[in-house]
């Protein structure tokens, strides 16, 4: 199966291991993976801040970059949910509407792709430790991907998965919210940090680096030594 990797700008620039792990998992499961170099950002920072015109420029760039792709797979529920919004954003635009629909229909979050498309629920990895999972809001609510990451985690040898209390709550990241409403964001992420501590897990696992760098950054500031890992790291550990 031919897959185009969408690294997300965050993983590309700051957290390259997330994209590497995604790539390696896909290859290990027999996919032929390419990485279109024209890709940039899904546009969410501008879109969610109300800068529609600016957002559309990056969205068009993304559609151009991936126009030959069959499947577009990325390690972020939030970024993928943004890609899935393109048809809505370009509705009524004669030039881009159809393009956006085609594009969106090819996009998958990595755990969603593994479970729903490749029909793989056990990636054959081993990871020893007590982990808790933060399900990101956009992934579960906008993309509707809820169970897939847990199914995969539960099948990793050595993983002890414990439920995060108030799992449904947002971590307080929200893109520019974290700086625009820093005071509220601080309360939200502190609460999330408390809940993570309650689980006594060694690892906090998530499928979105945005949330993880928020929660991880806060826990690090609080001097807590919970390790933050993207789910692809666990799925790519043998």
């Amino acid at each position, binding site marked *: 199966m031919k897959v185009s990797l969408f*690294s997300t*700008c965050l993983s*590309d*620039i*700051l957290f*390259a*291991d997330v*994209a*590497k792990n995604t*790539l390696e998992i896909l*290859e290990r499961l027999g996919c*032929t993976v*390419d*990485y279109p*170099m024209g*890709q*940039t*950002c899904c546009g969410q920072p*501008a879109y*969610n*801040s*109300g*800068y529609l015109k*600016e957002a559309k*420029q*990056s969205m*068009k*760039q993304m559609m151009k970059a991936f126009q030959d792709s069959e499947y577009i797979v990325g390690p972020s529920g939030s970024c993928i949910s943004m890609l899935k919004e393109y048809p809505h954003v370009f509705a009524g635009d004669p030039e881009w509407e159809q393009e956006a629909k085609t594009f969106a229909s090819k996009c998958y979050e990595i755990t969603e792709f593994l479970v729903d498309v490749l029909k793989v629920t056990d990636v054959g990895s081993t990871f020893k430790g007590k982990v808790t999972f933060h399900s990101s*809001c*956009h992934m579960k*609510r*906008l993309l509707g991907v809820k169970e897939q990451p847990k199914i995969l985690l539960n099948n990793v040898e050595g993983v002890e998965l414990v439920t995060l209390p108030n799992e*449904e*709550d*947002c971590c*307080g*990241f*929200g*893109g520019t*919210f*974290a*700086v*625009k*409403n*820093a*005071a*509220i*964001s*601080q309360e*939200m*992420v502190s*609460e999330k940090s408390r809940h993570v501590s309650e689980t006594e897990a060694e690892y906090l696992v998530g499928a979105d680096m945005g949330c993880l*760098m*928020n929660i*991880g*950054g*806060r826990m*690090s*500031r609080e001097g807590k030594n919970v390790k*933050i890992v993207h789910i692809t790291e666990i799925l790519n550990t043998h």
Partner: protein
Amino acid sequence: MSVKIGEIPYKERIQNGIKDDFMRQAVSSAQGRFRNGRLTQAEALGNWEDWRQLGSEIRAHTMENLDFYLHQLSEQVARRGGNVFFAQTAEEANEYVKNIIKNKEAKKVVKAKSMVTEEIGLNNALEEAGAEVVESDLGEWILQLDEDPPSHIVTPALHKNKQQIRETFSKKKGYQGSDTPEELAAFAREQLRQDFLAADVGITGCNFAIAESGSITLVTNEGNAEMVTSLPDTVITVMGMERIVPTWEEMEVLVSLLTRAAVGQKLTSYITAITGAKGPEEVDGPEEFHLVVVDNGRSKILGTEFQSALHCIRCAACINACPVYRHIGGHAYNSIYPGPIGAVITPLLEGYDDHKELPYASTLCAACTEACPVKIPLHEHLVRHRQIIVEREKKAPMAEKLMMKGFEQWSSHPSLYNLSAKLAKPALGPWVKDEEIENGPGPLKEWTDVRNFSVPQGQSFRDWFKQRQKDGESNGNKES
């Protein structure tokens, strides 16, 4: 009062909320209970998504035909001996009600809980007309005695603790009992019973008006709306123009959604439908019934991309699901409609000047949208507001505009993007210690005031990928 409740600036309101430990504890525990209640009820039904779908279809159809259904409603109310007044503005509504009070020479007015009368500031108008106004919902009564605005649309006094309530009762009503909720409530029962019996006029809001029969449905647990509509000789119902359904069959569906979504009950203790004035020989009920249909800015929402905001049935499920509300409480929104729905409708009703921060008081986590029993896409409306603030209202800060211009260039030009992928980490170098930044420069400052910023070592993914392909390890992947 209007939709807006005060003049305290946004940042200060947020701080006031965050510092109020009791309020936050109360809100947090209430949210937990409400949420569990809603989820338990949804699960009991098994097909909650079908119910939500039906609810949204009913609301959409009704809004699309709002003129028709309001016409039908008014005909039916009149046929059953009631009067109907259509008020475009708060002033018109207040003036009409005031005239009734004056003509009746009413001394005492009892009210059942109603958000729309808060919105239009009816109580002030009634007092101007010389009547004593008594709020009869326990929570509203507490707030009225304490001259405090509501902080939640279902449990308005959520932010008050029992010690504060006891103090209010004792200061304003000479209460001498303890602060146990039972005793406080028993005192309220005894006090308000006298008010019900002595009232000349009763005023209610409206959960759902039923167009086919001209009936007004009221949903309560305390039974106060029943008192207000049964005992006084004159009853006035004030309704937001969108609070209407075609027939009893749709009323039933929406009430089922409302009580489940609001308080996790299958039905509340009292659901009452009153139709017109009382019939011949009937003892209970009003001799004279008035229905006041209020626009007050709602028609500005109709026919726009925000139309579904009018589908709201005021259940507060979005408020109870909102993590932002949990930390800042209702008053931080500076609107009688707090939480996500408040952040959506407040700027629509009163404009952006005083409320431009509200659409940003959300992480767009969509917990609100998921909770809404009539499927209002609340978080999408918040994004829409932000677009308007940026593009039409031009109220966005200059620094942000510049940043977004930069974003546009960066994200639509792969060459610029590539460059940044190379330079980002080296540029941050001076601030990085052990792969983390604790005191970030420029836009990172707000971030690192609260939490560390992680900067793992190593090159960007794309540089690594290019290298990997060059090294011939790419298992035949073709160059992109």
